[in-house]
């Protein structure tokens, strides 16, 4: 097992292994997503209060879950890269940033579309929305820093530090925003209780969550492969790969 991890840390083996893994993960992702969408859009019962418009939840909630999850993955990978100088961890961290920013954006957009019929406004300064928006800014900061630094090795290490600083700050920001909101204007938005969700709605939600996780795995592996090729473009095995394909 340890040997497996050791070999995976080598960019060449990782490149080949990821290449083999991507189709399988992709098929699984497609399966889960189709099942989740079918179950969510056609099978799950209509909500007694929100009608059919609640069904955007099956995209919105998994996307919001992913936005935080990916930030944690990014920071963890960044820490591993900083501590043990594993190049692959740096690659994974920076490849996650773009996907994470996309999911955060998706969560904000779907939330906004959901909010319009439910709350009557595209945007309210609700605590959760606000912290999601700040999370998007944190992601964009990471990406901007990575793009600004010329040397990609340095850039990856710098963004890892930024991601770690962000991770320390996320709970602080989250609670301060929540506190700010409750102090300022009281609950203008009545939230429905999360745990009282119907089982027939929960199943498609979980299916979609699994599908999103798999989607993230596929995209992050694809991005990591590109990143590895770019970084290792002067090494022997990449040149051989190029020669073989041309």
């Amino acid at each position: 097992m340890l040997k497996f991890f050791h070999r995976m840390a080598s960019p060449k083996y990782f490149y080949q292994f990821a290449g083999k893994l991507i189709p399988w993960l992709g098929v699984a992702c497609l399966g889960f997503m189709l099942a989740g969408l079918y179950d969510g859009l056609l099978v799950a019962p209509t909500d007694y209060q929100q009608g059919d418009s609640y069904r955007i939840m099956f995209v919105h909630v998994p996307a919001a879950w992913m936005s935080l999850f990916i930030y944690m993955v990014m920071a963890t990978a960044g820490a591993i890269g900083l501590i043990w100088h594993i190049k692959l961890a740096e690659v994974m961290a920076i490849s996650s940033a773009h996907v994470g920013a996309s999911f955060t954006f998706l969560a904000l957009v779907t939330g906004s579309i959901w909010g319009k019929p439910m709350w009557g406004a595209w945007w309210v300064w609700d605590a959760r929305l606000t912290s999601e928006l700040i999370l998007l800014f944190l992601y964009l900061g990471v990406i901007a820093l990575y793009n600004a630094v010329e040397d990609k090795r340095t850039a990856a290490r710098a963004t890892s530090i930024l991601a770690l600083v962000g991770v320390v700050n996320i709970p602080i920001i989250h609670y301060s925003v929540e506190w700010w909101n409750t102090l300022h204007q009281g609950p203008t938005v009545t939230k429905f209780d999360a745990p009282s969700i119907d089982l027939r709605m929960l199943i498609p939600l979980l299916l979609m969550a699994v599908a999103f996780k798999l989607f993230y795995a596929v995209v992050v592996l694809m991005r990591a492969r590109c990143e590895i090729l770019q970084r290792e473009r002067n090494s022997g095995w990449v040149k051989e790969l190029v020669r073989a394909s041309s």
Partner: protein
Amino acid sequence: MTTANLSQAFMILLRRDLTLAYRRRSEMINPLLFFVLVTALFPLGIGADPTLLREVGPGIIWVAALLAALLSLDMIFRSDFDDGSLEQLLLSPHPLSILMIAKVFAHWLITGLPLLVVAPLLGVLLDLPGAAIRTLLVTLALGTPVLSLIGTIGVALTVGLRKGGMILSLLVLPLYIPVLIFAANAVATSGAGLPVEAHLSLLTALLVLAVSLSPAATAAALRISLS
């Protein structure tokens, strides 16, 4: 040759930075002018109704302080980076994170402390009650060091970049949000005549957290930026 011990090195660095700043006094004025000017723009933009100003005043002053702190951040490493003394600092046998506290402290004395001096004036301009102005001073005293400490991490990450300024604001401003929330709320709350101990405790907690964690992050970031 004798080498300075840690506390001597700390004091030497602090004195050096203060001396350098003192010799370029005009640069110190600019963030202050900015602070006053931005605050003065708001009544022009939203109207000079005293009740309105009293309501939005704390937020305006704190946002302006945030931006002034952001603008002055670049000064902390710029000249050291240009003349190479930053690299010398990295080679020092003393722990870099402690030296970073000296740098940040000097920077705060130069740029953060003056904000406290003009803040009461701005409070009067925006028609804040006396209690709110007192709270404003306390929050500035507690909050601006946090801004300096967090911001220095961002500067350390971007110091080697040619166009670091824009990116710096993108990196740092989201991290400033908790300070803004607690501080501006404290001022508004005390303006309404309510107790603000909770806000001040939280701000103090942020300060303690920033003092203990951010120098290490700054040191690590500097080592990466200058590698």
